[in-house]
């Protein structure tokens, strides 16, 4: 479980680094936000959202509103990674929860 979360987190930071090299545009932000929103929708359907995902999306929007698209894209990527990690958690737990039952 933890390993998956870490993998996702690493993937997210790599994306962040890759995009930071060139200044991001409003369109970059829109694309990143759309991807994050899709992941969030899937997490919602899996009934397993994290509060931190929503926090990142808020931060992304705030940065975009201020015209800071580098920052906005970074937060949107982070939100997407967190949403995907919560989906992975839900999937994994479907199999793992019975191991925790008191017997």
């Amino acid at each position, binding site marked *: *479980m*933890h390993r998956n*979360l870490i993998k996702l987190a690493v993937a997210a930071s790599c994306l962040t680094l890759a995009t930071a090299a060139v200044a991001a545009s409003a369109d970059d932000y829109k694309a990143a936000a759309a991807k994050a929103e899709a992941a969030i929708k899937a997490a919602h359907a899996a*009934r*397993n*959202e*994290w*509060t*931190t*995902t*929503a926090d990142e999306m808020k931060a992304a929007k705030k940065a975009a509103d201020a015209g800071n698209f580098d920052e906005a894209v970074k937060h949107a990527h982070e939100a997407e990674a*967190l949403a995907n*990690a*919560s989906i992975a*958690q*839900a999937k994994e*737990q479907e199999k*793992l*929860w*019975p191991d*925790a*039952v*008191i*017997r």
Partner: protein
Amino acid sequence: MLRKVCLAAAIVAVTAQPLLAASGVDPQADFKAFRKYFTERFPKVPLNDFVNGPYSMDEGLRKQWKAIDEFPPYEFAVDQGKQMFETPFKNGKTYADCFPNKGIGVRQLYPMFDEKSGEVVTLDVAINKCREANGEKPYDYSKDDMAALTAYMAYTSRGKPMDIKIPNDPRALAAYKAGEEYFYTRRGQLNFSCASCHVQNPGNHIRSEVLAPALGILNAMPIYRSAWGGMGTTSRRLRSCNSQVRGTPLSAESPEYRNVEYFLSYMANGLPISGPGARP
């Protein structure tokens, strides 16, 4: 593992409960194991004391509680709830018309499986169903009106043993199982299940709070919490337990919360209602 499951299935089959065998759900066996776990882990805690949540785990807290309970902070809510309970709806009917025994001393029967809708009905949901059936607006599940009414209804049931029924209906068993799953499923960015805190760590501190044991954990609902500066319903409590692990809470009384309440209350069968409670 598989052997255990097969063995359990065989035992169930022999005791002629075909529904249970077919679904692989055995509430009775869960009940026994759950109780054994807590009574063996806390041999000094009298069985009926588990319903006092954190106080059952901590001597210092217990002393504080005894002092608080001389002027119980939930008393105002109980009085208010009584008045609300006795005030007729606009159509002249009252809550008494919606509940068994006119709504007095019935808290221990909830959550109840409703064969008509096929759903688990908590006391809070039953109250709102009653209101709506009589043309009144439902109360917010997390706010003071609901807390006051449930506080009064719990108060009239104090000491009565929890009495949750799981009818031999595949939908009831499915709801129970879903509740069990919700209880043991890790969630939130911190990756905790309800059990991580209330099974693995009762009595341990989390920030300034002492964790309550899962056995009898709903018997004291609703509660007054100094940290909240007021009363909180079961919904309020469960939602904040989700946020603590950075999980987005579900909407109040969503099926998952009702089902986990069903599961936990069944585990508490026989233990006395202690609500409303007062917490630091």
